[in-house]
């Protein structure tokens, strides 16, 4: 009894240690380990024994294709689902973190958190643009864009249901405070006219946003004159002239935010101190990069937790599937293993060969699952409700790091699922095993 408990404890310790190493080790450490292991297989006596036992086992796989595929498919399922969910989190995060720069600053009314909630009067917006830390252009005008973010409900292409799209009114300096934005089709809107340009993400998700088309907002006709590409969160937006958007939405001359370019990134603190000391101003400010990055935190954390929970539960299922298969495989080969032991093979090569076989299945499953997730979901576009209560379009991002962590999960499942059957294989009493049919 005591011995059994001791064995169980030792096994648990081995598993914990192996998983810890697997999770923490960088790829080169694992590669070194694989190389050392291959060297051990090729060069030492025990290694060569292990390899020959493994060879026999691998040769019998065609006879038990069905049960072996349980391990492979089970693990492929875990890795596929895990990688897909994490790719969704990463894609959303990437889109928002790419948005904005460190030398542009967005200013909102104090306490408003997002642009949609914020209101700045025309006078406040003027004061903000006139701060000495704001860069001036060749004409001596401040490089500042007073912006008005509103929302329009338009039917989505996918289900024809109305969804919110962000309509951003921008000032004439918008092109220099949002340097990523490039016109790909058509032209920029003309200030003073009811003209719109649409982000390519918005155009792909919503019906009726093609250049040349018209859009009716609050009883007024707007014309789409161009398409822009920014490769970030602005791709999900529609842009027009701040003043005209304001009149359509009955917002007068107020805006929701002012985006300015700083004379240099170091001017941030000076600007902040200036705004804090002016009693006329009640505003919050952030660099545009920080403003957008912060918006991704909550959703991507939720998706990561979801992915890990779903992946873990599936992994438990897959471990038991692997245990079943490998115990059956060991039982089927009991006579053969006993024979090997009888002619002088030691326990360690048998243990390692069973473990190695399971890990190979697991590796195959991991590769299959990761490949499926990559083929189906890399750059798959989706959209969700963002901070401004409107759709943010993003692409799933199946990065090499995600594929690698998927493979690690596969190997961990294979290790746990193979270790116990491997121990069983080594402990089959030779005499009983030889009698086994």
């Amino acid at each position, binding site marked *: 009894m005591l011995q059994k408990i001791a064995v169980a404890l030792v096994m648990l310790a081995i598993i914990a240690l192996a998983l810890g190493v697997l999770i923490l080790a960088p790829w080169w450490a694992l590669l070194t380990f694989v190389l050392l292991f291959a060297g051990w297989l090729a060069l030492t006596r025990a290694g060569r024994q292990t390899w020959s036992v493994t060879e026999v086992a691998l040769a019998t796989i065609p006879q038990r294709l*069905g*049960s072996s*595929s*349980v391990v492979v*498919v*089970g693990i492929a*399922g875990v890795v*596929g*689902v895990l990688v*897909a969910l994490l790719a969704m989190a990463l894609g959303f995060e990437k889109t928002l973190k790419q948005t904005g720069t460190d030398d542009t600053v967005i200013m909102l*009314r*104090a*306490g*408003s*958190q*997002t642009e*949609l*909630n914020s*209101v700045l009067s025309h006078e406040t917006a003027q004061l903000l643009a006139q701060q000495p830390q704001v860069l001036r252009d060749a004409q001596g005008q401040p490089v500042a864009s007073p912006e008005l973010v*509103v*929302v*329009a*409900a338009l039917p989505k292409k996918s*289900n024809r*249901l*109305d*969804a*919110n799209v962000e309509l951003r009114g921008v000032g004439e300096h918008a092109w220099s405070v949002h340097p990523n934005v490039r016109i790909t089709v058509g032209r920029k809107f003309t200030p003073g006219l009811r003209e719109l340009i649409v982000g390519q993400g918005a155009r792909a998700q919503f019906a009726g946003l093609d250049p040349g088309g018209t859009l009716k*907002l*609050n*009883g007024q006709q707007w014309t789409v004159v161009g398409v822009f590409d920014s490769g970030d969160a602005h791709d999900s937006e529609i842009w027009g002239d701040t003043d005209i958007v304001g009149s359509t*939405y*009955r917002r007068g001359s107020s805006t929701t935010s002012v985006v300015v370019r700083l004379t240099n990134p170091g001017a941030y603190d000076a600007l902040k101190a200036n705004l804090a000391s002016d009693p006329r101003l*009640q505003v919050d400010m952030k660099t545009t990069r920080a403003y957008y990055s912060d918006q991704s935190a*909550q959703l991507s954390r939720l998706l990561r937790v979801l992915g890990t*929970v*779903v992946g873990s*539960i*599936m992994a*438990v*299922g*897959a471990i*038991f*599937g692997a*245990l*079943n*298969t490998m*115990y*059956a495989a060991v039982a089927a080969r009991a006579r053969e293993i006993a024979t090997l032991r009888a002619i002088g093979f030691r326990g360690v090569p048998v243990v390692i060969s069973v473990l190695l076989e399971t890990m190979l299945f697991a590796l195959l499953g991991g590769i299959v699952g990761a490949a499926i997730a990559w083929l189906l979901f890399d750059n798959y576009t*989706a959209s*969700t*409700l963002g901070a401004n*209560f409107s*759709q943010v379009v993003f692409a799933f991002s199946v990065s090499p790091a995600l594929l690698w962590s998927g493979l690690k999960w596969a190997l961990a499942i294979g290790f746990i699922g193979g270790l116990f059957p491997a121990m069983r294989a080594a402990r089959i009493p030779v005499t009983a095993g030889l009698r086994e049919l």
Partner: protein
Amino acid sequence: MKYLHLVWAALLRRKSRTIFTLLSVLAAFLLFGLLDSVHSAFTAGSRNVAGVDRLVTVSKVSFTLSLPKSLYERIQAVPGVRAVTYANWFGGIYQDPKNFFANMAVAPNFLSLYPEFAMPPEQLKAFHDTRTGAVVGASLARQFGWKIGDKIPLQATIFPQKDGSNTWTLDLVGIFHVTDPKQVAQENQLVFNWDYFDEARQFGNGNIGWYITRIDDPKQADQVAARIDALSFDSDHETKTQSQQAFNVAFVSQFADIGLIVGAIMGAVFFTLILLTGNTMAQAVRERIPELAVLKTIGFSNRSVLSLVLAEAVALLLIGATVGLLLAGAVVAGVRLKIGSAFPLDPVGVDIWLQGLALAVLVGLIVGALPAVRGMRLRIVDALSGR
């Protein structure tokens, strides 16, 4: 039924195999229960039977845009309309932006259009009599430990007060309960008096966010909606009126296609599960061929052998599913107790159980079919001689 002990004996023949398979089935159904609970919570609003006679009227441009209050009397006069109320999104934060819950300013008669929000009459009266009064759902009150008489400070994100302050302090005068367990997520909101809100806010005065209309006959919903929208046609504040359910469906679909995500995960899980339990059943029948032959020899019909194997597969799935769903129910209950209804999770109720058990029987029949047919077709002589 009289062969139950045979099915049982077959399952216990190799205990470790049965246990491992059961644990895999359990994991699959645990996941099924949890994901279905999330899915059901997200779609709860669109299945709310209490709301079939309610229409929502929002600005056609976007529901974030406000409407003039002058529409109130005009909507009331529309034929087919029984009662009208209105509300305005407030978007206040309690202590930390992470503590998100819906909070809005509502008309005095708002709660009378939501009979599913049950509250003692004296609390309703207090709400009408207290200018700064607020009413919250029971889950929300539990989550933050609020009692009647507490002062709740909300940080405004949209509406500062006239003096520029962002802090609105409300007096908690009522706590409502939602009786339908499917709709408990509705308890996660706070409402306060629109009159106070409108008087104290800095801008937007006289405008409201959306109208809720209760109509005489749900079958007439489309006609009444068209009449309401006709009131503001071609004005600078055109409206869009739809049933509360249609509004909720469109709203939820803006977050993500939850059904698609859940469906894809469950597809992967059950594909694996079928393969896994199918393999177990194939092994179990393969090694029992001689025993099945003996059964046939002593007079069991082909049909009985077929049903025995099928029953074994279904029993395996049902036991795993039951334990898995029980566990899912416990996990959901635990999470709800811990974090309130901040994360949408429905209790694992009768319909999730029925779906889960039906799925278990279906998967059992699928994975049992091939081995069962094999057992049925075996020839006694061959099987007994081990050929």
